[in-house]
């Protein structure tokens, strides 16, 4: 009988600690499949953040190091500059990448660091219990916006990918989601392109993934998948935001 599905080699044999229906585990799965398919297990260095994915190193069977909150892009810069042969990726939440780590992210992108950021947008601070994130939708209720996000006081959901796309050092930016088999396949394709642009030494790449957090959204997994389609994608439209990989030569 033909085996059609098995655990990726670079996914450790540990049970995920994530909540049922959480997007993190799907994304880990997709990424480790890619690490196998692209033969990156012995070259990859991953930087997980403080956040729900802080224990990502329990699952990814590649070299990994903890980063301080939001500093992933700077840490990745240091690694890549010291050892350019590595394929370096950060794995960051929306609080991590788009609030406390905004400066590090923008400047790493602007320098065209040859690193890949995997940006998990779940519109809340998951690990700390569901507070407002920079990406929280307007009127969305969180523990620190109990009456809904009031954009006049709390600002607007930030479109980090669009901001980063303005920077010349960024070569590949796509927004995907993991709320349907089709979208999961697209996510995998996007991360493959992002990793490939790094392998080709082209510049900074980022994949923003709309990812369900049923626990803090107070929904069941199915509702959270639907909420991504109905609400989140209106603010954060899916698709390739920037791709200049075809125009750029490796430098």
């Amino acid at each position: 009988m033909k085996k059609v599905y098995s655990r990726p080699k670079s996914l450790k044999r540990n049970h995920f600690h994530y909540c049922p229906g959480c997007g993190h585990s799907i994304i880990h799965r997709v990424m480790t499949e890619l690490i196998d398919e692209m033969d990156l297990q012995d070259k990859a260095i991953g930087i997980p953040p403080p956040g729900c994915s802080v224990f990502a190193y329990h699952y990814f069977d590649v070299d990994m190091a903890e980063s301080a909150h939001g500093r992933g892009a700077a840490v990745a810069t240091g690694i890549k500059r010291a050892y350019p042969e590595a394929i370096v990726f950060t794995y960051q939440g929306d609080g991590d990448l788009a609030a406390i780590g905004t400066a590090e992210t923008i400047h790493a992108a602007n320098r065209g660091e040859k690193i890949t950021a995997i940006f998990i947008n779940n519109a809340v601070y998951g690990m700390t219990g569901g507070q407002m994130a920079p990406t929280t939708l307007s009127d969305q209720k969180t523990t620190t916006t109990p009456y809904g996000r009031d954009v006049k006081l709390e600002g607007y959901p930030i479109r980090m990918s669009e901001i980063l796309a303005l920077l010349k050092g960024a070569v590949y930016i796509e927004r995907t989601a993991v709320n349907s088999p089709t979208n999961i396949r697209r996510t995998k394709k996007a991360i493959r392109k992002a990793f490939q642009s790094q392998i080709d030494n082209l510049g900074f790449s980022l994949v923003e993934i709309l990812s369900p957090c049923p626990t803090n959204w107070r929904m069941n997994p199915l509702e959270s998948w639907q909420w991504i389609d109905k609400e989140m994608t209106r603010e954060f439209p899916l698709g390739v935001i920037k791709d200049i990989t075809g125009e750029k030569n490796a430098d």
Partner: protein
Amino acid sequence: MTGNSAVGEAAIRAGCQGYFGYPITPQNELTEYMAAHLSRRRGCSFVQAESEIAAINMVYGASLAGVRAMTSSSSPGISLKQEGISYLAACELPAVIVNMSRGGPGLGSISAAQSDYFQATRGGGHGDYRCIVLAPSSVQELADLTHRAFDLADRYQIPVIILGDGMLGQMMEPVEFKHEAPEEPPVRSNALRGAKGRPSRIIKTFTSKPTELEELNWSLFRRYQLIKKEETTCETFLVEDAELIVVAFGIAARIAKGAIKNARTAGLRVGMLRPVTLWPFPAEAVREFAKRTKYFLVFEMNMGQMVEDVRLALEGKGEVFFYGRPGGVIPTPSEVLRVISRHYYQEGLR
């Protein structure tokens, strides 16, 4: 050569392969030296970071990848680096951090000061950790201690701070470099370079088990005990017959030396103990002197920080006087001589 440039050259000769900095006076010549000289070397990188926070995290990254890495700044910037230094200490990663300190608190002044002694010697960031702290008092010593800093960082897998000041950084003195830059700087054996031919590695501290973290703290402290035993250093000056011992570090020791020479000409039996390692502090040496003399004058360019370590070391056995000028004021040797003479005669020393 200026002190700042001497640190840069010494770092390159020590095999530093990554420098990450953010401009701040009075240490810009060091960043500029690395931009001119390190960036051109094969396998080396220089990045002018977007902030001190980014710079120290780049150092963390480069250190993870196994190369010798450094950053430099001055007081306000060193405050921003504390988060990263705490992570370096926790993850047992070597790094060299230079603080050409200036007057504080706040934006303060750009003139030399020693008000970051507590911050440097007590860890500085969150958590229970220490950094080795080296305090040079000449341009030559800046160069020598830069080399030693890289060696200590590697030997003990610990961040090492060079605590200079704005005056040392900017003054010009002849300097001799004792080492040539290595052709192929070595890569630390436990570096993250991809899991090729070995199991994957994790560098982290976060844990849901407090006992695991407790064990990390214990293991750090066992290493700190070893460092205390092996690496504590100080310099003494005219102490053999001294009735009064001046304790001073860095540029203040340089000023005190001038004062002590003049005091000797005037017939006062005064000597000096200069801690070279501020952490570990040479407490044993201080206690030894207390067997011979009772009187200590601590002189610092701050409101009294190292004086606490002197008092702790003496365990109540000596008489400790303090003289300090904070805020970036640089006292003259004659000012210090007046203080020495006053205490000398007040106590009826001969």
